[in-house]
């Protein structure tokens, strides 16, 4: 039996798996969409004004955000809403009654499987005088409420606010619990992915290379600039799958991009005011990292087994590689057979790893100053693909130990993983580039969620 089947039930119970989607209106934020659906449900009960709203689950910020937006919608419907605070859902009933509400809506919020969900009920708080001390309920209003919309970057930001950052007493890695949401949907599949501060604001932007374009997105998924690569000459040894190299260069913020569809790469500068990417030079080698350079294996989705570091020193690897990641002084290279070479520093003997996916990266997710190893499935067609986070404490192969966190990803092949500092805190966020079954692409954002 494939090991994928063994772990599948476990993974299904974790967060961030393929999302059921009830709303496709992507121009409106997830909180607004969810509130719109919930308001519609409450109105259809029909609810009797005044309506009290009670929320549990999620972070306090997420509860307040949904509460505020939903209350505004219900107010527009003339339902005189108020948000009540209570220690439990049961206690909320008496609080609402004491405030004079005639309807109580109790909702539990959660960000799970790339979706923002609300589940709960609505009940009438009026007690018949002849019931005496028994707190009987009226026949109406009553109903169950279940709504789900695709989560977005805003929801992840709300859900992650307030996460404790205390270091465990052992001094080991802090807890990792990632919540995911779709950041960007792309018409084209991803050829390369990078993150870095391109506008000097102290926060990273996300850069995506597709076969013929380079795009830069803000932390909320907003497109900042896009550049077509059509003016570059065609390559004589392109790859069947979109592939390339993309890196944010050190020094003045610049983006280096090279698609294997083209015979040369470009160095670009983001002009945020004009929403453009301006070419300032060409490349003669594939940009693997801020200062690291390599070369493509002609016609293949792989890089040559020799990497040139920032100081010009060459590093010769055991084999060509499909993925590289640099978190100085550490370096990670993933080879075509799913093995990896992890260098603790330049010149050290690499640790051989196994079972790595092309979507692998080094990044400090918990803010403890030591990067973690992130990797996707080594299977050609995982269903679903899985992201694992391993601690890099000490030497040896970190993948032989239980991961700090693992969770399934949305449908598709996760071939690209980078970490980014999108919000200025110590913990880096994760961006996964997915090749979707219909041949399109998707960027899936994961960030630390509320415990």
């Amino acid at each position, binding site marked *: 039996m494939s090991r994928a089947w063994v772990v599948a039930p476990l993974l299904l119970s974790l967060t961030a798996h393929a999302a059921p989607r009830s709303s496709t209106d992507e121009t409106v934020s997830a909180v607004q969409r969810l509130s719109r659906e919930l308001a519609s449900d409450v109105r259809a009960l029909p609810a009797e004004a005044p309506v009290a709203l009670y929320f549990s689950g999620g972070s306090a910020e997420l509860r307040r955000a949904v509460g505020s937006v939903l209350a505004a919608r219900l107010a527009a419907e003339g339902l005189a809403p108020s948000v009540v605070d209570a220690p439990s859902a049961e206690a909320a009933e008496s609080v609402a009654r004491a405030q004079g509400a005639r309807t109580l809506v109790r909702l539990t919020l959660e960000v799970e499987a790339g979706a923002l969900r609300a589940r709960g009920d609505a009940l009438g708080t009026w007690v018949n005088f002849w019931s005496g001390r028994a707190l009987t309920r009226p026949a109406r209003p009553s109903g169950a409420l279940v709504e789900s919309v695709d989560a977005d970057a805003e929801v992840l930001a709300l859900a992650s606010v307030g996460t404790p950052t205390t270091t465990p007493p052992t001094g080991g890695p802090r807890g990792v619990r990632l919540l995911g949401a779709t950041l960007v949907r792309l018409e084209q599949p991803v050829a390369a992915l990078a993150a870095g501060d391109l506008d000097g604001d102290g926060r990273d932007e996300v850069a995506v290379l597709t076969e013929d374009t380079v795009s830069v997105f803000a932390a909320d998924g907003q497109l900042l600039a896009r550049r077509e690569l059509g003016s570059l000459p065609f390559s004589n040894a392109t790859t069947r799958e979109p592939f390339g190299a993309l890196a944010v260069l050190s020094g003045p913020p610049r983006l280096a991009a090279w698609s294997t569809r083209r015979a040369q790469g470009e160095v670009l500068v983001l002009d945020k005011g004009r929403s453009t990417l301006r070419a300032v030079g060409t490349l003669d080698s594939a940009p693997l990292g801020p200062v690291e350079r390599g070369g493509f294996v002609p016609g293949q989705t792989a890089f040559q087994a020799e990497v040139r570091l920032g100081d010009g020193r060459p590093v010769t690897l055991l084999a060509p590689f499909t993925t590289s990641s640099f978190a100085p002084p550490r370096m990670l290279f993933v080879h*075509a057979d799913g093995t990896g070479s992890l260098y603790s520093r330049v010149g050290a003997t690499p640790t051989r790893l196994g079972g790595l996916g092309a979507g692998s990266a080094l990044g400090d997710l918990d803010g403890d100053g030591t990067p973690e190893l992130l990797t996707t499935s080594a299977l050609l067609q995982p269903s679903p693909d899985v992201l694992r986070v391993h601690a890099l404490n000490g030497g040896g192969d970190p993948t032989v130990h239980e991961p700090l966190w693992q969770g399934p990803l949305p449908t598709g092949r996760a071939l690209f993983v980078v970490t980014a500092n999108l919000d200025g805190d110590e913990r880096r966020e994760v961006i996964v580039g997915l090749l979707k079954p219909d041949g399109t692409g998707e960027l899936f954002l994961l960030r630390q969620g509320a415990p």
Partner: protein
Amino acid sequence: MTSRRIALASLVLLGSASALGAGRTRYGGEVRVAHAGPPEVGEPALADTPLEATLLGLLSRPVCGVTPEGEIHPALARELSRPTPQVTRVTLPNAATATALARAWTRLSSTDGASPYRALLYPLRGEGRQVTASGASLELALSFPWPDLERALCHPALAAPVASSTPGPFLSAGRGALDAQLGWPRGRPYLDRLLLTATDERGLARLWSTRQVQVELGVGSETDNAPAGALLYATYLAFSPRRLPTDFRQAVESSIDREDLTRLFVHGPAVPMPHLLPPALMPQPPKPRPAAPASGPARTVTLVYDAALDDQRAVAERIQVKLHERGYTVALEPLARSALRARWAKGDFELMLHAVLLPPVPGPALAVVLDAGGRKDLLGVELPAIGALSDAAARDARVRERALALAASLPLLPLYAQGLGLRAMPEVGGLVMDAQGLPMLDGAFLLPTEGAGTGGRP
């Protein structure tokens, strides 16, 4: 959908769940392929059986391909664009390829070409006889609106002749070996090498049972992991109205059972074709069979057919038997395909089994059928009216409507449509059919076995 979406989508769908490879398709290896076709294929317009078109496609491809969803992606071409609505620009890898392609299309469109596939270029100014290269580009000006031009250009008959100047996915290395072409504009095939063996049906069975090959083309029984393609190789009984009585169509329709032909006389995959276009393009139900016409005087006619196709021989013999019941003595005359096409071009036949590989788009398919039916004059009437409809669904509906209306006026009796049977060993992944119903072997790869990645984890 863009250039590589179909290939990528196929990879996502067809990869093995248990194969390890860092999530990416791995390059390298060789696959042994056996087929029941000729050892070498000729020029594209004559290599039009599904099997021969597949073999030709290993060495030479048309400028583009069509996805099963009807979208176009460049193949030999770097790009296809429409600088203006009436001009299509095809950007090729180099000027030599552009020149070779322009020559091939001009020849196909000329009267010497003697091919019904010239109808694919009919909407071009000068009916495709004036295609010239400008550097590495071809500027194709339309004489009337024809939104399906690009889809028509993806037909295998419009591939350039095999030559060093026109790269294909593979390059012949001699003795049936084909090496991956690094410079193929769509990206080199995943496999390093294909080893082709031409054999017959018995040879196919023996090679398969002894596991000496990993892929077989042109077989009746397919394996589970083999994709099913569209059945677009359409065979018609063409007749000369001047040399046959007016009730000949009725005589054939009343005597020939198309279900019988596909079940008993031709290789699968095959379906009866009751209308001018194959069921894949025209799914209307069949009309009821007419009664036999009143018997007339006995006549002797000659039926010419393609000597290279066993299916046509079997069908010709069946027609011989069935028409005998209607008072026709049918003499059979097998001909080489080139001779058959020459006879067709001159109208020098009484009866002919005429098979064409139709494009997967109704408009261009009808154009080929009208020309194959000897009614090239109708192209100038029918195509502009179809091309004037900007909506693809409306165009397709109009084509079906016209195909029904024109059926009785064309000296063609549709018989059956066939595809290419394929079987593959489980270790071969990535085998998908294009919209034409032909397998794309350049997308095939060898699946790594589970555990090939050391210490692999799910």
